[in-house]
Structures are given as C-alpha cells and as structure tokens.
C-alpha cells in the first residue's frame, strides 16, 4: 500500500507547524447509516480503498477528500490490533486537525463474508451485466459486479 507523503504547499506547511504535536493517534469516525463502529475513537492508522488508490492514513495526514471503492478498510487501533471491514462505497474526509471521517454505505466485518455466497452472487451479477440494456441498468449491474468482486477477493 502506498503511504501519502505530505504535499509541499506553503500554506499547508505553516498550518502543519502550528498544528498540535504529532501524536501517535488520531480520532476516527467510521460509520454507515445503520452502524457506528468508531466514533472519534483514537486509532493509529487506517488504510482505505479509494478511487485515487489504496492509501494509508497516519496522524497529520494532508487534508484529503476521497471516494471509497468496494474494498477493505483496515484499522490499526490504539492497542495495536488490526480490524478489517469490507465497505461497499462511501466517502473519506481527512481534516487539517487530523480528524478523519469515513462514511460508508454498507459495512461488514471481513470475517462475516461467506465466500461461496459471494462467488455465486458475482456470477449472477456478471450475467445481469451481460443482459442489461439501458445505461442505468448497465451502471447498476456494474456496481454489483464491482462490489462482489471486492468481496470475493477478501473472502
């Protein structure tokens, strides 16, 4: 996974200098409309799958807005253990004050993914994509294929 280096931008540099000392954790809010897994909880690192690449977030990461792809969000808690969750889509925001909000549409624990069910669903969605006619149907079917491919990859 690629770690983002802090972009060299004068204004951002000044802000960085005035920011709080580099702690080892940052507050993470990770939730979906139906579940709130982390609420401003102190964590050490979060890796997210975004449209601009899979990257890791550490304290004092450069402020960023990202769109999530179907994939795994990997959280290293303050205690040091790593928790992995599969997300279908969503957004990630990293602010100048080091707070991070990851809002996903659907979240599930990687351990809860049934590989066989995911593979079967992937096949079904691929045939749906092949037989889709309108633009909207094609787009919807493509989204299904992407999500199930992501799930099969981690199951």
């Amino acid at each position, binding site marked *: 996974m690629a770690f*983002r280096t802090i*972009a060299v931008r004068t*204004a*951002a540099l000044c*802000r960085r200098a005035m920011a709080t000392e580099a702690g080892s954790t940052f507050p993470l*809010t990770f*939730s*979906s*409309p*139906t*579940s*709130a897994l982390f*609420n401003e909880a102190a964590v050490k690192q979060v890796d997210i799958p975004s*449209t*601009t690449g899979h990257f890791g977030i550490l304290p004092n990461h*450069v*402020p*960023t*807005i*990202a*769109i999530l792809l179907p994939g795994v969000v990997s959280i290293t808690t303050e205690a040091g253990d790593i928790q992995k969750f599969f997300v279908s*889509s*969503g*957004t990630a*925001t*990293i*602010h*100048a*004050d080091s*707070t991070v*909000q*990851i*809002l996903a*549409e659907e979240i599930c624990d990687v351990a809860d993914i049934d590989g066989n069910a995911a593979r079967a669903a992937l096949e079904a969605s691929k045939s749906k994509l092949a037989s889709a006619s309108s633009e909207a149907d094609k787009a919807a079917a493509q989204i299904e294929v992407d999500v199930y491919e992501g799930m099969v990859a981690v199951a």
Partner: protein
Amino acid sequence: KNHHRGRSSGINAEYGGTGAESLYTKNEFESGEDKLILAISSDRGLCGGVHSGLGKAIKAAHAEKPITKTIIVGDKAKAILQRTMGDTFLATFNNVGKKPASFTDAINVAEEVLSHEADTVDIVYNKFINVVSYDSTTKPIPGVASIEANDAIYNYDEVDSEVLKCYQEFTLANIVYHSIREQECSEQSARMNAMENATRNAGEMIDKLTLAYNRTRQAVITRELIEIISGANALE
C-alpha cells in the same frame, strides 16, 4: 419502546450525520444567495407543536427574505405552508412517518434536491435535544459550485469536480438521513409528552366528575330521605 428504538438507530445516524457535516462545519464556505429549503416533517400529527414550529420558522425566514424553492418531506408541513408558499414547491414527499426512514428514503430525497440548481440547501428540521425538548433548526449545506468558489476547499488534496460531485451526493444523503431521524425522535418524544398530558388531564377530569357524581347521588338520596320522613311525620 418505539421511542427508544428510534433513538438508538438515531444515534447511528447522528454519528454519520455529524461526521458527514464535518467538511462544512470545519471550513467556512459562504452560503450563496440562491437557496433551496428542504423542510423535514411527516404525515402524522398528535405530536404537539412539532410541525407548526417548523412551519413558523420557515414562514419567518420567508418573510425576512423571500424563498423561491422548497422541497417538502411530509404532508403536515405541506399543509401548513401550502397557502403562503405553495407556489415555491418543487417537490413533495409523503408516506412519511409510519415507519422509521431508511437510507434509501434519504437517497431519494437527496437525489431530488440535487436535481435542482441552488447555491445552498437549507435543511429545516426539529433537532432532538432531550425527551422534553426539541427545537426547529436550519442546517445550511453549500452546493458544489459554492464550495469550488471558496479557497478553503483547496487545502484538501485530491479535489476535482468529479470527486466533489460524488462526495456531495453521498454526504447530502447522509445529512438528510440524519435530519430525518432527528425529526422522527423529536416527533416521537413530543407525541409521548402530548399523550402523557392528555392522559393526566383525562385522569383529573375523571376525578372531578367522580366527585360531582357522588355529591349528586348523595344529594338525591338525602332529598328522598327528607321527603319520606316528612311524609311519615305528616301521617302521624
């Protein structure tokens, strides 16, 4: 029981909601002049001043500076605003309030909102404070054009029109979902309080009427006794 169930999923919505708003609360994005009002209410009444409070807040804003675009969620707000602001309605949603809103409902509302041009969307709803109080609140959400026109956004990496548009769509859906769940909580607690007051008033009325009934009954008995005794005396 309904109230507590609404509150716990409401709490999830709250985390998502406050998280979703973070971009707008941590940065100063000037609200544009062209506003779209999204009013959140429901179809069901018997909830005290919840809907009328919302209507009053919107009418006051309209009187201060005329509103030209509104989207209404819930028949109650529609009925309240129909006469004075009916010509500003762009869309209305009903079948709201029978069961808790789902994220899909929020998506539908957000899609409708985004299909109209506006600099800012003002979401007006009842914020849940505690079991005995709520307050009508306006949450301004700047549109993509407003955000792109502000320097603050360029402190963020990876910002381009496509990313901003996707971000805005999903974020708005989350904020709308949060607002609808808060509104549901406010309504539910207002309904509980209204029912409690009504029950207490009915109880007081029952007590008063019971006393009056007993007094009347005793008065009738006393009168009959007097008639009988006088009659008996007259015969002697």
